[in-house]
């Protein structure tokens, strides 16, 4: 019921809200997708990755460079971007050989390497300036010409991804991942190849982040090293946690809150990075299960006192 209301609101949004809100909503969907890819690992396997901006950025850079510098059409450039990001995930996937703190630290280090390459290899990536003038996507006669049309394209892709994600986490594979999160030794003694399970999950998660990266570059129309920075990786993880891990709407709610706060905050405060930092601290201390978790707790309490509104 809630999902249908939200979908209707999202579908009608461009008709009742101005271009600013439509742009913000597009960004929320794109970063929500990135947060969802982080949560595929965090919420289902318990692995906390801090390098997802890398896949996001590599996909964005690949698509942008192919499209702008070599004039490759969208039909090839966009899939190439997703493939490049996924390929990076195939390489970075070796980090699933580690667990816990080591996994966190290694993904941070790996993420910085990608940022460093984007920043220093200026002859290819454009250095600090990045790649600019990325056109709107167009496949044959189907061309996107306005932000209005792009909004619906992003929304459609996000909905498809959410459905695919739901099928995945409810499949035997997804249940296997949850089993590993609960007790890896037990799953291993049941005969599961847990390392391979986690590796596949890592690559799938990287592919989803890459897709978000391609959507981002066509929205933003340029890409620079900030796209692959540690800050983006952390924010994506925070979005998933603020919204509520292990759910599908959670990362999108978190994305809405963080992007809303940043857009609203930066017009009032000088110190918006410090405000972000404060949100991190507050989340960890007071809402470790995110808003979805808070809502669940609240509902459970209401039910216990017999005043459930439903």
């Amino acid at each position, binding site marked *: 019921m809630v999902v249908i209301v939200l979908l209707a609101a999202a579908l009608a949004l461009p008709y009742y809200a101005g271009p600013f809100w439509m742009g913000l909503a597009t960004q929320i969907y794109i970063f929500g997708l990135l947060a969802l890819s982080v949560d595929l690992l965090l919420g289902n396997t318990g692995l*906390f990755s*801090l390098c997802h901006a890398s896949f996001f950025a590599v996909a964005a850079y690949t698509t942008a460079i192919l499209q702008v510098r070599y004039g490759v059409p969208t039909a090839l450039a966009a899939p190439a971007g997703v493939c490049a990001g996924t390929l990076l995930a195939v390489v970075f996937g*070796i*980090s699933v*050989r*580690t667990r*816990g*703190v*080591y996994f*966190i*630290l*290694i993904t*941070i*280090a*790996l993420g*910085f*390497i990608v*940022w*460093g*390459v984007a920043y*220093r*290899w*200026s*002859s290819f990536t454009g250095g600090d300036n990045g790649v600019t003038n990325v056109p709107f996507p167009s496949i044959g006669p189907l061309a996107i010409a306005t932000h209005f049309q792009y909004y619906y394209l992003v929304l459609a892709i996000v909905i498809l991804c959410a459905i695919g994600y739901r099928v995945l986490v409810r499949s035997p594979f997804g249940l296997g991942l949850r089993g590993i999160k609960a007790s890896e030794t037990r799953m291993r003694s049941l005969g599961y190849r847990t390392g391979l399970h986690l590796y596949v999950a890592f690559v799938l998660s990287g592919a989803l982040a890459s897709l978000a990266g391609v959507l981002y570059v066509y929205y933003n129309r340029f890409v620079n090293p900030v796209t692959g920075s*540690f800050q983006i990786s*952390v924010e994506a*993880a*925070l979005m998933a*946690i603020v919204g509520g891990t292990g759910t599908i709407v959670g990362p999108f709610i978190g994305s809405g809150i963080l992007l809303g706060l940043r857009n609203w905050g930066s017009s009032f405060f*000088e*110190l*918006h*990075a*410090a405000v*972000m*930092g*404060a*949100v*991190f*601290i507050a*989340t*960890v*201390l007071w809402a*470790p299960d995110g808003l979805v978790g808070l809502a669940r707790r609240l509902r459970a309490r209401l039910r216990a006192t017999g005043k459930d509104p439903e």
Partner: protein
Amino acid sequence: MTSAILQAINGISFAALLFLLASGFTLSFGLMRVVNMAHGAYYLLGGYVGLTLAQRTGSFTLAIIGGGAAVVAFGYLVDRLLIRRTGENHLAQVLLTVGVAFVVGDVALAIWGGDNLKIPVPPFLRGAVELPGGMYYPKYRFVLIFFGALVAAVLWLLYRKTQIGAVVRAGVDDREQVSATGINIDRLFVITSGLASFLAGIAGVVGGAFLTLYPGAEWEILVYALVVVIVGGLGSLEGAMIGALIVGLLDAYGRWLLPEFSYFVLFGPIALLMLFRPRGLFGTEH
């Protein structure tokens, strides 16, 4: 040939700086199981406080002590008021301390601005020394190698040969057991985390005198320290020494031979270690 030797000295002096930062990080994890991502921010804070002190008083020694002391005070507050509340949840610690680092970085930007600032070095450390074979090398970075080696030696002696070191080592292995023998483990935690903060603070002053201080420096240096800790093994002091040397040398040669891919050179040791020794050279099961 000459450049190869000079790059080696560059690498070793950078390693000395990295050791100052990584040793504190690794000891906090070893004893308290705390992953403090604000360590880079401690470095930057120490450096900025040292810079202000050096400009006001003109004394480099005072800058080092003041920078270290300021970070000890700040680190104590963060530890008591925030990190303490996360228990042993590493994910929460990482997010929390990243948040602290964001706040510190942003406030530092507001106070000290966005320019590259360099801490003035006293006159007797300026200039170059002549090495055998007609090579010249900056005196400051040369002294830094000796400083790093001195700190490493003191830490090692403290850790391996004194009673308090023995208690810390016992705490790394089994905290409950140590506490059950009547040792005040809480006081030990305060001392260790104070030492870690102090080392990060002086690293900021020492490093700020040749790498300069700027917004974002906290993350750059933190990543190097993380790679050191990953290579050496979390919680191991010896690992931090060897790891710092490996990373320092690889970075120097990487910058020299493959300037555009110098970050990429760091990936080599991480990838190899993950394939053969996921816990680092000296790491133990946690």
